[in-house]
């Protein structure tokens, strides 16, 4: 037990890596997801189909397979990333595919008349998007997006399988030294739980907050 307590600083470092991976992935996937999501709703066919195929392909294979695929596949194209960079790319590509669908759902939930009315008063495309669609779509976007963030934090545990010492691998390593698996797994589970529970509670709160507006 004493060893488990002594290992806390080491677990803390692992937790920081988990948060760092999650933070990077959340930012990258948000940017990519927003751009591609807008592309899939408003783009012409040659924009729509590549994004559609990208999204369906990435959502159709297990995250673990995707991580291995990108981790070993990138060097084939002459891209020798560090293992940290390649898992961030893999996770961000995976999450972006989910966020594309969240963005699409949010935008398409706005009645068509809103866009037409904005057009009628002479707003340009970017103005319509920014001042008419976005403020309404954001409340449909936020709750599922936070769920995607929770999925990112959970998915980041898989980076331990390519040798990055995140919280999960830190736990495994401490268990390897101390041979007391159960308390450490439970401690790790609680650490993940606290982060994700705060996030999913925020998601529920936002959903309730936005629920009063009805079309």
């Amino acid at each position, binding site marked *: 037990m004493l060893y488990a307590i002594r290992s806390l600083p080491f677990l803390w470092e692992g937790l920081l890596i988990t948060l760092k991976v999650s933070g990077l992935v959340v930012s990258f996937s948000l940017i990519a997801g927003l751009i591609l999501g807008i592309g899939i709703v408003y783009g012409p066919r040659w924009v729509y189909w590549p994004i559609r195929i990208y999204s*369906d*392909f990435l959502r*159709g*294979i*297990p*995250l*673990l*397979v*995707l991580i*291995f*695929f990108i981790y*070993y*596949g990138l060097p*084939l194209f002459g891209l020798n990333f560090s293992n940290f960079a390649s898992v961030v790319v893999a996770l961000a590509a995976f999450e972006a595919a989910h966020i594309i669908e969240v963005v699409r759902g949010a935008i398409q939930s706005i009645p068509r008349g809103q866009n037409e009315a904005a057009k009628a008063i002479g707003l340009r495309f970017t103005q319509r998007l920014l001042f008419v669609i976005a403020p309404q779509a954001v409340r449909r976007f936020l709750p599922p997006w936070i769920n995607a963030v*929770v999925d990112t*934090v*959970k*998915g*980041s*545990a*898989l980076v*331990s*399988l390519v040798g990055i010492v995140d919280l*999960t691998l830190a*736990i*495994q390593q401490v*268990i390897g030294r101390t041979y*007391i*698996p*159960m308390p450490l*797994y*439970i401690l*790790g*589970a609680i650490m*993940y*739980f606290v982060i*994700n*529970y705060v996030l*999913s509670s925020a998601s529920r709160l936002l959903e309730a907050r936005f629920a009063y507006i009805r079309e």
Partner: protein
Amino acid sequence: MKYHLTYDFIWGHFDRLGWGLVLSLELAFISILIGMAIGLSLALAYTGGGRLIRGAVAAYVEFIRNVPLLLLVYLLFYGVPSVGGFAYDATTSFIVTLSVYAGATMVEVFRAGLAAVPRGLIDAGKAIGLTGWQRMIWVRLPTMFRIVLPSLSNAFVSLFKDTSLASVIAVPELTYGAQWINTNSFRVIEVWSVVAPMYLVTGYGLLFLLQRLERRYVVH
């Protein structure tokens, strides 16, 4: 130096991937059946139970849904036997893990399904003289199942993809088969370029079949 893609070794050992895929599907199927049993009983307990039962069910659902599946796999395979004083094989352990995981999703699905059964239907059951149990068995449950069918198919395909995590505790499913070929031939990128489409085609194939099935039974 140019890298030459060589698939000979993979085709030579394709049985590992083929049977791996079959095992993946079996794992997902058994787990969703057990998960549905857990989900249905807990959803009923939640709907009819007092505060204590509701709290316990909510705690189970929240805990499982907010912890990475990988950690749960480790916890049930390495952790639980270490304190329980017993050992079980990796496949059994993974089925338990995935069932518990699926159960948490299923509670939510069934709870929402039960709530979505129209009030008028239950009242009509009452009007023709059905008792509480009869209404549950002949009115609420059949209607609920037809409402939740789309969620069930999605959950099944999602579980099928999650079975890839069984490879970390050496259950010989598809991803493990891929890793076996990797360690024996180092044809890493070739293997993943075969395995990824296998997951993709099976996953969407399942979804297509299940959606055709849904169309016959589903009610909105």
